[in-house]
């Protein structure tokens, strides 16, 4: 194959894949800016005519949506706090120390990545009723933290590996304690990476459907509310499109922000 033909083929493949990924997102955005009556018309134009925020406004004003959005934000922030406070020390330990049981711990972390919400949610719902955590935002945040912890540990490990230990040692020879050296030298350098871990945790929590649906009744998060509206309450199509669009917008922005860490987060090979 000639070099020009190769280049053309490459360009074609890249354009095709890009269109495949982006087109559905563009289409749901267009549907969200179409008026409700237009959405049910036949034939209807794919480009909104006229452009309107009526459908999105109807969704946002629907019973419980704003409150559920608020709940989702609270759960996500609680999850971030818990995942970082619990996971970052473990990530630091994995990056700085060789110790007996290190490999076993790493394997356990990989294992927890693989058994997600579907298995945990039902038994935890039963326990949460006894513990008084059922239908609470803290309860949902605990489950999301269990799901986010392996990722928080993996990303913080890679972040601290990137911060030379020599800097901490230098601080210690200059009279800092172990903790002080960490807080004043390693932590500031590691902050951008920790922020990425926090943002990823946000996406995970914001998107989680199964556990949030099982573990709440009135205190719904946004995915749980939408799941209920779609799965059993028979919400109208325009509500569904607006909900889909509204839920993916933050994720789109966030994936772009943490793009440097995508491979670290997900691209781990089990040996």
């Amino acid at each position, binding site marked *: 194959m000639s070099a020009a033909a190769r280049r053309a083929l490459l360009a074609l493949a890249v354009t095709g894949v890009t269109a495949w990924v982006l087109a559905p997102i563009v289409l749901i955005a267009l549907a969200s800016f179409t008026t409700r009556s237009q959405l049910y018309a036949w034939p209807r134009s794919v480009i909104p005519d006229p452009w309107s925020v009526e459908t999105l406004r109807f969704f946002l004003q629907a019973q419980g949506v704003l409150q559920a959005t608020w709940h989702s934000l609270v759960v996500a922030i609680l999850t971030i706090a818990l995942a970082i406070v619990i996971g970052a020390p473990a990530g630091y330990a994995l990056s700085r120390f060789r110790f007996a049981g290190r490999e076993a711990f790493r394997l*356990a972390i990989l294992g927890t990545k693989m058994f997600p919400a*579907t298995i*945990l949610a039902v038994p935890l719902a039963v326990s949460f009723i006894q513990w008084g955590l059922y239908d609470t935002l803290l309860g949902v945040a605990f489950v999301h933290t269990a799901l986010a912890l392996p990722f928080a540990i993996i990303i913080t490990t890679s972040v601290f590996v990137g911060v030379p230990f020599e800097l901490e040692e230098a601080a210690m020879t200059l009279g800092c304690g172990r903790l002080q050296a960490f807080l004043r030298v390693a932590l500031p350098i590691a902050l951008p990476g920790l922020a990425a871990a926090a943002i990823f945790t946000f996406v995970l929590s914001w998107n989680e459907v199964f556990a949030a649906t099982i573990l709440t009744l009135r205190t719904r998060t946004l995915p749980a509310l939408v799941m209920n509206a779609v799965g059993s309450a028979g919400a109208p199509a325009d509500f569904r499109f607006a909900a889909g669009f509204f*839920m993916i917008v933050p994720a789109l922005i966030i*994936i772009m922000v943490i793009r440097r860490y995508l491979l670290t987060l997900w691209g781990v090979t089990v040996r």
Partner: protein
Amino acid sequence: MTVAEQPLDSPAPVARARVDWLPYALLAPTLVFLTVFFVYPMIQAVVLSVRDPSGGLTLRHFQAMVADTYFRGAVRNSLLLSAIVIPLQVILALAIALLVNTRFRGHQWFLYVCAIPLGISDLAAGLVWLSIFTDRGTLNMLLLWLGVIDQPIAFLSFEEPVWLYAAIVVTEVWRATAIVMVILVAGLQLIPKDYFETADVFGATGWRKLRYVTLPLMRPALQTALIIRTILAFQLFATVIALAGRIVPVLAGEAYFQYSLYRNPSVASAYAVLIMATSMVITVAYLRLLRGREAEIAT
């Protein structure tokens, strides 16, 4: 770009003579938390599924699960959808990974665009494609514009099981190819350039290089991607409900309906245990099936 495995494999060499308790203290919060919110519920799932109200052992929750009208359909759909979706995802992901690896100008942006679905939930993805496949959706409008139809086709109805399946498959391939792709891209980056240079020296080109050099070296990454993707395929739930309601029952969806609709945590737990057992069997099966002689080269 960060190489995936490098951080975990190369801890800072901190030599210490005596046993240091500090790393264990740092791991303790994680271990305690995961014991309460991970290990305990997994055990609890098994307990709930085999315990009768008086506290004795019973199989009747499993019998109730198997006897349920939706059970056989759920098993069939979960298996069939996995069998269709996963090969498509792996092939597409491999193609994207190889495209990224040609390092054309802008390959980084291409990688980010392909990774976008990583940030989209199964529920949202289902709703995105609902707007395309629904009666008044984009696909019907396209077909009308092309002059293929003059009345909308009900793609997502009970009468059109093939279309319904196709819609679910397309949505899942769109949503979850990204995870396979990211694992494969990371795997490709771990392969030392020398291998490809050697292959070039010996005159290997195109397909032969892919077949005899790239693919064998990617075996660990492919194995990981297959395991994670298959386990996640059995979690499939919100996408299907968004597109098909309960017309196409799946295992995780039935766990949801048993708990939320019938208030039956024991049968829901039986489904959870079935999903857990299936995931474990699949993991072991992949590890055995894909363990070849070449695997050692790559590690």
